[in-house]
């Protein structure tokens, strides 16, 4: 999902950068308003956590390809403002120090990886949680976990569709659009299922262990707002 240099045209990269800067400015301001002194170290540890999980040297995922993207997990754990900030820091470090994705298209990558989970995943998560809370036989914890999982899948699929749309507008790698669309959305449909399952299971485990660490835990319901 990390787009490399030269894969899209310059105007698209510039547009992506502008959108990413604007979105992150909003996140930074809101996060600054809400932050308590314990939240910044927690966000930093979360960033280290995602960096470790995404390190390609650790075969933690299915087979050898694909790893946890974690955007929706970050939003579910840290809220819609801190989540994108954490994913941004991780993505910038990956871009500069591991060659994942290009610096000139960093903005586009940040929109797909950091902002989509907050803008698309988070409302889906909140809506589903409310919906599932009314379902009988589906406890609040299980309902929240399922909502997180589905939101994670939706975010990944949205990001892959968005990437295809971006390529349609400003693709420059000389690969036909249909090939890109089929391979990207096809691969990420599988990734989305895995991402959804793992996100749901992680949230379920955390709600049982330390519900206070999960921003979208049922207790927080009234204080949350969609971005």
């Amino acid at each position, binding site marked *: 999902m990390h787009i490399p240099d*030269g894969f899209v045209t310059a105007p698209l990269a510039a547009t992506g950068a502008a959108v990413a800067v604007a979105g992150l400015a909003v996140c930074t301001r809101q996060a600054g308003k809400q932050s308590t002194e314990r939240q910044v170290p927690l966000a930093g540890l979360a960033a280290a956590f995602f960096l470790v999980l995404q390190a390609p040297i650790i075969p933690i995922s299915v087979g050898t390809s694909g790893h946890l993207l974690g955007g929706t997990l970050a939003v579910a754990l840290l809220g819609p403002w801190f989540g994108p900030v954490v994913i941004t820091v991780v993505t910038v470090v990956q871009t500069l120090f591991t060659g994942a994705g290009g610096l000139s298209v960093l903005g586009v990558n940040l929109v797909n990886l950091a902002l989509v989970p907050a803008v698309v995943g988070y409302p889906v998560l909140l809506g589903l949680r409310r919906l599932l809370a009314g379902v009988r036989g589906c406890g609040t914890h299980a309902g929240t976990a399922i909502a997180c999982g589905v939101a994670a899948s939706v975010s990944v699929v949205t990001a892959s569709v968005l990437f295809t749309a971006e390529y349609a507008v400003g693709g420059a790698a000389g690969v036909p659009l249909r090939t890109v669309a089929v391979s990207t959305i096809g691969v990420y449909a599988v990734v989305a299922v895995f991402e959804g399952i793992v996100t749901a299971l992680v949230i379920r485990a955390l709600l049982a262990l330390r519900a206070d660490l999960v921003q979208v835990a049922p207790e927080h319901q009234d204080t949350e707002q969609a971005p």
Partner: protein
Amino acid sequence: MSAHDPGAELLIPADTPVHRLAPQCKVAATFLFVLAVALTPGGVFWPYAWYLVLVAVVAAVAQLPPLMLLRRLVVEVPFLLFVLALPFLGEPPDVDVLGLGLSVVGLQAATAIALKATFGLLATGVLAATTPLPEIIAGLERLRVPPLFTAVAGFMVRYTEVLLSELGRLRTARACRGGDTRWLWQARDIAGTVGALFVRSFERGERVALAMASRGYTGTMPDALSGTAAGRQAWAGALAVPLLAALATVGAVVL
């Protein structure tokens, strides 16, 4: 040396002008250099020779062994595997290579992507070899990166090593119990590992936060830790490198 000394394995201590340069100048120069390389238009390959000369000169001034810089390139391999597909998926015209019909456009795109990623790594490799990570963070602060990002990045680089070893212990424990995460139906094992790692990291984060609060942390690091302003000479010396690189980039666009 402390138990976790981030970036120490990348650092090659020496006393050279590159090592002594203010970190904010080095960070800005690295960023602009990588950007200049990234903006090289497609289908042109001579600027990369010029970029290589620039990196080699800086590495020579900093007395870095070339082998060490090259060894760092291994990390890009997983990210570059997909470029192998581009020559097969690209649009015609095709060129015949060893009986395989490869797309010319796809080949050019794949080569450019691999080269740009490689130069990105070479440049950040020089930066990491001459600048300790805490200084890089301090340099970012001096470059007016919002404190929220530098604070998060600071914690991240300091704790990545700790979490990696934590993950290693968890995986050993899992292997001892017969766990083997390879297939989709073993997602439960992965989720358990991830959950445990997360709880452990966050509990560590809570302890760190308490310790920092008790030492008077209020959200920003003391000014003494963010270094001093760099002189005009330092800036001129550092920015000469990306400027020279940009000349080639602009040249490639114009010609």
